[in-house]
């Protein structure tokens, strides 16, 4: 699996998705895909995320052998899935691994929105579950980076059950003293938000990330009150008490490292197990 992508060619340009200003691609990349003009945090690919946060060269992929099964024979699913694999070089929307964070070993799971909208089917659910379980079995903190439109409807009720399955794994972390930190990135929605994402010990979000249960259109139709301007943004969720903090990309590494060190402090001092 290609881990470091090629650097952008010198002189290439990109456009900010928010303020529409033109940026040097190399500068944009060097600024962690945060627009220097408006501060907009553009989506990261999974390996960009890993490079951003974890100690250099410390990432080791796990659970890479899992593949989707198309259990329902859902119309066009096999085809769409194959295309996504082809286009992204990934086998599904979630990448698992272990890494170190300022020297502390952690179990991680990273969703990549570019793979079928980061949707959670059986493979994603299994990987999230294993990342949490690995935290329990190897006594280390778990960090999950969320980026998902929700459950993968092409796997029907099996996808819905991933909500319960991943929640069971969170329960295992909680009853075993394993810290679990969720990082919401743009977007974190629906079945993912309504399961493992929202019950992390600590929830951090990138600025302006779209976060919600239902599509904004559905919510607005269903509601009777007025819709706040910042509805379903990270800033809205912070005010609503659903997040612990909004952290800019450049501070993410240090915040996560502090949290893992403190919440996982008891893991360092405990007697070694089995």
């Amino acid at each position, binding site marked *: 699996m290609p881990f470091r992508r090629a650097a952008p060619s010198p002189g290439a340009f990109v456009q900010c998705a928010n303020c529409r200003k033109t940026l040097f691609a190399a500068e944009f990349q060097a600024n962690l895909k945060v627009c220097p003009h408006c501060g907009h945090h553009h989506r990261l690919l999974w390996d960009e995320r890993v490079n951003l946060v974890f100690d250099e060269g410390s990432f080791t992929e796990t659970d890479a052998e899992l593949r989707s099964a198309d259990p329902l024979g859902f119309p066009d699913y096999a085809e769409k899935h194959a295309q996504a694999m082809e286009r992204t070089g990934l086998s599904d929307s979630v990448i698992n691994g272990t890494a170190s964070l300022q020297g502390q070993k952690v179990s991680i799971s990273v969703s990549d929105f570019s793979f079928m909208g980061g949707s959670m089917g059986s*493979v994603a659910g299994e990987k999230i579950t294993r990342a949490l379980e690995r935290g329990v079995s190897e006594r280390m903190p778990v960090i999950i980076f969320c980026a998902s439109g929700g459950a993968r*409807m092409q796997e029907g*009720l099996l996808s819905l059950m991933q909500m319960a399955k991943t929640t*069971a794994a969170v329960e295992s972390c909680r*009853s075993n003293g394993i810290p679990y930190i969720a990082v919401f990135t743009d977007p974190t929605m629906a079945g993912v938000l309504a399961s493992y994402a929202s019950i992390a010990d600590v929830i951090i979000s990138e600025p302006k990330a779209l976060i919600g*249960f239902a599509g904004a259109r559905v919510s607005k139709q269903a*509601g009777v009150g007025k819709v706040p301007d910042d509805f379903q943004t990270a800033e809205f969720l912070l005010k609503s008490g659903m997040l612990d903090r909004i952290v800019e990309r450049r501070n993410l590494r240090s915040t996560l490292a502090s949290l893992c060190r403190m919440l996982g402090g008891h893991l360092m001092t405990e007697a070694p197990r089995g």
Partner: protein
Amino acid sequence: MAKSWKEWEKPVLELEDTIKKMKSLVDAEPDPVRRKELADRVADYERRRDAYLQTRYSRLGPWEQVLIARAEPRPYTLDYINALFNDFVELQGDRKFGADHAIVGGPALFEDQPVMVVGHQKGRTIQERTQRNFAMAKPEGYRKAIRLFEMAERFAMPVITFVDTPAADPGVESESRGISEAIAASMLAMFELTVPVLSVVIGEGGSGGAIGIAVANRVFMQEHAVYSVIPPEGCAAILWRAPEKGAQAAAALQLTSDSALRFGLVDQILPEPFGGAHRDPSEAAKTIREVLRAGLAEFGAMSPEARKAQRAARFRSMGEVLAASNS
């Protein structure tokens, strides 16, 4: 594509009308021979009606299953609570924000055993539907459920849930009070329980709103209930930008009880009286009573730790994945 369950029940309703009229003729007929003749014809009509219902309901398509699962005369949670339990005391507060009538719950006696019952509740009148928000629970509904689950744990009461919701409430207020967190926290609370937990999907098992209270040791599903990751209309809207293709989506989603059983996502299908649970609610309740009794006996005999572990393992096994030979 049918728009309502009434479409295929129309012949039945007509037949029943005829039967009713003829029965009054039978009663009025003085001549015993003629009365016998008429009574035979009534019996014949009844056989025809039953045959029709049996055939028709045995070959309902997925979309028709959706329609019948949503049908107003279908028994709702409170109907089953009345039929199956004694001394139900509804407890209303979430102790945080509000009283949500889309989910009802409280302690009750099941064959003299105290249990905690929780379920989605639809309404039949327009007023009740509004009051109950069409069984679309808000965060406070799930937080009430959590409170009741935790109370059940403290007092060693088995938990029984009835699932019947189109979806959790998606409104702006529910978002701002954390509907997602509430659903997730409710599932989490159910995984923490060491008491037996049994769930019955009695109507619409609508996505996150349903699984939020369906984390059980054993999940039963009535024959004509549906259980789906997304409403078929929503699925059609996303896939084909055509919400009216709900029937196609219903087929693709495999949301019927036999599919759920085939994938191992529910444990047992509860056969309904032919023509659906609404034709004979007390018979439908009887079937539920039997599986609840068996389930309580089975899980009641387990240790608390084993019950919790069985529940986690049940959901842990769900999902269909392949393993690549070289990775």
